[in-house]
Each structure stands twice: as structure tokens, then as C-alpha cells.
């Protein structure tokens, strides 16, 4: 696997009161993922067109962010020099997995190898993206489509058994993502928040609600759910794991219903699991599911 390096200096737009903002870091990570994809394909994703001349988008259907202890988002601060390494695997010209390793540049080697990525206990924060190449049809639905003006043959193949699409499908069918243990009981009642989509703020160049903004919507729901359970406003907290499956999108004039449930961590009272569901108000269709492990 070729690992593409990128650099970023943390600026105010990347931060919130806790340090590095999770949704904004996800945006930057996906941005370098798409840059690496464009580099491998010989054409930026923005310039990809299908056989009918329609724009091709790399739509995200899965993300899995893992952060080692002491390297959660609050460990990073303004003016920190970050480095990203991006590795890709693909299924033909249709689907691309992006593996992003990131950390302070001083903590990472000059070049990455496959050994730097760890599925079990990563030494550095890492994010796995699952994406499909698609276009929008006349009804504004996303339709699988390969680019006609770019080839992904140079990208190593993604084995079927490792395709995160299977996790997304299972999540749609079971309502679970495997991050919050089944043995952790739900605490209190689910909290529900409503979000009115702001088309100027929440959408991307494809006119769709940007995937990372779903995490921003969930953060409000998570704080609300936690406050209801703990009787306090949750402030400092550390995300050690977040997995999100995306099943669809919402029109820019729709509303979203976000339901969050806190799950107690058993003996580990400082860690909770939160499962969040996002549904479209227009038809009550579930369009995203998230499970996160959060340390108080």
C-alpha cells in the first residue's frame, strides 16, 4: 500500500473549547483521503465524470475513528503541527477504502508503512473511511457509478472479507455497530433533539449534507443525553472510539431527528457508550447510526 503524507497546522477553525474539534478533524481527514484518491486516479475527485458526463462523488458510508489513550481530540491544540498518512484500497472503479493515520508530526515517522496501521491497539489516532463512487440521479438519489475519465487500477484491491460495507449493512439491519458492548445497559431514557438543516452551513459541494456534520449534530444529542443521565452539563470528555454507518442522506430543506442513548460502562464508571440515531423528519427513514465510547 502506498501511504500519502499530508500536513496540517491546527488553526482556530479546527478547534473548539475542548481542543481539536472532532467533526472538523474528520473533515480534514476526509479531505486528505480524497486528495490521495485523486492522486492515485490521476484526476481530482471534483473532476471525475461518469459516462453520461455527470459528476462522480466519493460518498462516505462508513467511518471508524480510534484514538489511543492520551491522544483523544482534547490532546491537540492550536498551532500543533499534524501529519496525516493516507493509504487506499479499492473495489474496481466503484468503491474505495481510506485508511488515515494522524498525530503530531513529531510523533510520526517520515514515511509510513503498513505496519503503522493497527486494527487492535493503534499507537496513533487512525480513521477508516468506506466510500462508494456515485452520482445523483434525477430524483436526487445517489446511484453507484464508476468514473469514465479516471481509473483506480493502481490502488490495491480491497478483499471482500475486509470491506466495511458489511458492517454498514449489519448496522442497518440490527441497529448496532459493535462498539457499545451488548452487556452495557441503557441508562435513563433516550434523548431526542431536532436539527433544522441549514443548507448554507450543513451542505457540501455536492449539495448533500456533509458527512462530518452528522457528527456535529450527534454531539449536541450526546451532551443532552448525558446531562439527562448525569444531572450535569458534560464538559470535558474524551472520545476513544467512534464508528458511524451512513444509510442515506437528507434534502437540504428537511429536518433531522437525533436520538441518543447512554449505556453505562459497567465496572468502568468513567467510560460510557452512546448510541445515536439520525432519521429524516420527512419520512422517518434512518440515515445514520453512531456508536461512541466516551470517557468523562
Amino acid at each position: 500500500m502506498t501511504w500519502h503524507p499530508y500536513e496540517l497546522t491546527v488553526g482556530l477553525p479546527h478547534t473548539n473549547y475542548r481542543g481539536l474539534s472532532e467533526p472538523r478533524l474528520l473533515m480534514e481527514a476526509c479531505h486528505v483521503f480524497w486528495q490521495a484518491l485523486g492522486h492515485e486516479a490521476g484526476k481530482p475527485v471534483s473532476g471525475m465524470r461518469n459516462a453520461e458526463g455527470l459528476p462522480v462523488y466519493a460518498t462516505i458510508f462508513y467511518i471508524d475513528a480510534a484514538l489511543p489513550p492520551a491522544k483523544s481530540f482534547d490532546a491537540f491544540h492550536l498551532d500543533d503541527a499534524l501529519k496525516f498518512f493516507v493509504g487506499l484500497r479499492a473495489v474496481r472503479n466503484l468503491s474505495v477504502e481510506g485508511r488515515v493515520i494522524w498525530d503530531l508530526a513529531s510523533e510520526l515517522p517520515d514515511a509510513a508503512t503498513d505496519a503503522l496501521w493497527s486494527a487492535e491497539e493503534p499507537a496513533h489516532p487512525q480513521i477508516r473511511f468506506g466510500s462508494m463512487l456515485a452520482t445523483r440521479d434525477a430524483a436526487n438519489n445517489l446511484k453507484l457509478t464508476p468514473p469514465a475519465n479516471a481509473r483506480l487500477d493502481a490502488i490495491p484491491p480491497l478483499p471482500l472479507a475486509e470491506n466495511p460495507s458489511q458492517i454498514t449493512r449489519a448496522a442497518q439491519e440490527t441497529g448496532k455497530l459493535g462498539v457499545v458492548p451488548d452487556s452495557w445497559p441503557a441508562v435513563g431514557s433516550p434523548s431526542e433533539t431536532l436539527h433544522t438543516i441549514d443548507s448554507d452551513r450543513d451542505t457540501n459541494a455536492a449539495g448533500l449534507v456533509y458527512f462530518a456534520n452528522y457528527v456535529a449534530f450527534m454531539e449536541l444529542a450526546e451532551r443532552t443525553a448525558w446531562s439527562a443521565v448525569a444531572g450535569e452539563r458534560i464538559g470535558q470528555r474524551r472520545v476513544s472510539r467512534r464508528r458511524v454507518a451512513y444509510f442515506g442522506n437528507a434534502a437540504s430543506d428537511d429536518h433531522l431527528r437525533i436520538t441518543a442513548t447512554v449505556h453505562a460502562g459497567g465496572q468502568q464508571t468513567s467510560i460510557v457508550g452512546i448510541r445515536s440515531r439520525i432519521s429524516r423528519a420527512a419520512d422517518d427513514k434512518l440515515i445514520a447510526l453512531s456508536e461512541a465510547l466516551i470517557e468523562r
Partner: protein
Amino acid sequence: MSSPLATQLLEFVRSTFARRSKGQPIEATTPLFSSGLVDSMGMVEFLSFIEQECGVSWDPTVEELTQLDTIERLADALSRKRA
């Protein structure tokens, strides 16, 4: 009598998309893509299976896959490709 390839494809579809069938039987003549049984992500997995497990290198368009639509017709197309 279905071919070994058709049987292999059928077993894959049945095991992977069983929940989406909502209890309806999946047969060699069941429409896979036009019915929504196999969605876009599933189509990608289906092509992976054909290449990685069946050993057939095939680069169909999405439209070609949708037109073939059933295990019976897909297996026939793949067998001709293998020959």
C-alpha cells in the same frame, strides 16, 4: 440443473442478503438489483465475490448488471466469459 457457478453465487446472495429478503425465498430467478434486494453497496460486494471467490475477472457496467439481474442470467454470462 444449475451450474456450480450459479450455486456458488446463489449461496453468496442468500447468506449476504438474507435479512433484506424479508423472508421471501431467494432463487436463481429472483430479481436481485431491480427489486432492491441487492443495493449499491451489495453490488460492489457481489462484484468482489465474483472476482475474488469465483476467480472471474469481469468489468460490467452497472447497467449491464441490472439488465442481467438474476443469478441464472449472471451465471450464464460469467460462464461464457470463462469459456
